[in-house]
């Protein structure tokens, strides 16, 4: 497994190889779709054109791609913020009072194991419009955040709590200065996971939920019309947004860690 050649000494760096791989892929894709002339395999240029058309003229109902993106992200944002507002404090509270969680497990755990997507029909019946989506996202994002926070609080080193307590620190002080900083990384991880599930949920909710706007319903509409190139555009946009959100989380996480380290050093 040891490699004799020094890494990176080749003519092409890792970046170069990636660029090469991508070009070959696009070239192959173009050639194959040209030769096959199949409805199911549009050329990259068709996809690009679809993208431009979707941006300028909008979809079959004239709703532009920007609008779809806006709707989906707004829904996600609302549900996600609600999940954080509820999940983090509740997780901290139940982590600090393990009794409460241990004696309500019989209610919480079964709900946790029902996939959030399974709630969609129920929510369609009981709620209307925007609240449907927000609720589903909330449900999907809540449990990773809540459980992540809770487990993290439970695993805070007890001596870290006992030391300030022995100095007569108030409870609130301990929570603010000890519990929250030490659980912050886990809370963040929970938020990232929650956001991922939130994306899955919004896709499903938009496909099933009945409204006309949103990326999920957009690609489903085009599936009915068998317009692969437009589906591809939608999927690429979904992937790109997912990627950027993930990057934002990673960026903030790094920032948070840096700040923590700086405190430790000084």
């Amino acid at each position, binding site marked *: *497994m040891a490699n004799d050649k020094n890494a990176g000494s080749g003519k092409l760096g*890792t970046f170069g*190889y*990636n*660029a*090469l*791989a*991508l070009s070959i*892929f696009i070239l192959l894709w173009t050639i194959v779709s040209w030769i096959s002339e199949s409805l*199911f395999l549009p050329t990259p240029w068709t996809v690009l054109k679809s993208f431009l058309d979707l941006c300028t003229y909008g979809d079959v109902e004239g709703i532009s791609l920007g609008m779809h993106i806006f709707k989906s992200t707004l829904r996600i944002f609302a549900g996600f913020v609600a999940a954080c507002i509820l999940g983090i404090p509740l997780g901290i509270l139940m982590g600090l009072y393990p*009794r409460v969680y*241990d*004696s*309500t*497990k*019989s*209610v919480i*755990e*079964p*709900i946790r*194991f*029902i*996939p*959030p*997507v*399974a*709630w*969609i*029909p*129920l929510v*369609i*019946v*009981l709620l209307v419009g925007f609240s449907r989506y927000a609720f589903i996202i909330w449900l999907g994002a809540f449990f990773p955040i809540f459980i992540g926070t809770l487990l993290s609080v439970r695993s805070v080193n007890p001596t870290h709590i006992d030391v300030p307590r022995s100095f007569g620190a108030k409870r609130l002080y301990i929570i603010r200065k000890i519990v929250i900083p030490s659980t912050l990384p886990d809370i963040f991880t929970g938020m990232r996971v929650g956001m991922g*599930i939130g*994306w*899955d*949920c919004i*896709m*499903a909710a938009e*496909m*099933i939920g009945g409204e006309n706007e949103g*990326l*999920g319903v957009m*690609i*489903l509409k*085009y*599936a009915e019309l*068998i317009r*692969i190139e437009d*589906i591809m555009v*939608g*999927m*690429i946009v*979904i*992937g*790109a947004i*997912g*990627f950027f959100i*993930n990057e934002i989380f990673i960026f903030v996480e790094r920032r948070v860690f840096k700040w923590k380290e700086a405190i430790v050093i000084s």
Partner: protein
Amino acid sequence: MTNNYAEKMKTMGLNFFTLAMVLVLWTLIAYWQKSPFFATPYDIVLGFVQMVTVGDVEGYRLWSHMLHSLVRVSAGFAAACLVGIPGGLLLGLYPKIYDRTRILVEPIRFISPIAWIPMAIVLLVGFSRYIFVIWVASFFPIFVSTLWSVRQVNAVYVNVARVAGASRLFIIRKIIFPSILPSVIGGMRISLGISWMCIVAAEMIGGQMVGIGRLILKSAMVTRMDLVVVGMISIGFVGYATNELIIFIEKRIFRWRAAVSIE
């Protein structure tokens, strides 16, 4: 010991109490609301009995829905393991290949598996649609966790075998494979959770009339809220059971990790 036991009994009692409280509250609200959209726990029990004995509005019984969902998830999940584990192992052993072609694989990871459903509807038919969606959903967690864990295998264990003159195959079988197994199974557990979510979405959107997701959706359309909840509980139960199964297998295989504790 007795103290511990008493504590356990108390927790259990409290759990029963909370559950009972929730059920009573639920019943009261449902009675007070008198709305067709609000099934009482009793309705749900009746709905369950109906699902078991007679079946849903189209006569499909509960076990048939469960079986269909289970078969779809198992098939897609197995396919994902079959491709993801060897693939992850291979690219983990030859990290250069992965590093140099990442740009083709990585972006796909960020497309939500549910966003593949329309594509599957267009390109595939019947059973294969579901398998494909589940495959996409479970492939990445398994593949990525395998790949990363291969990179993190402790070099000393490999060297122990190398110095003793071990062949490549021995090293892969007896050193690398056991090293990565915990993360692989961890990835499988995550995959399975995502799969259960995706199968529900796929069944709701995908067209066949049987499957727990479909049961939930079609019951909702005729406002049989009791059957909706029965479906939700069933999917929760199946998800829970399969998760427990993996944890059980984990504990069995990883006796050597007992001290490190899995959960």
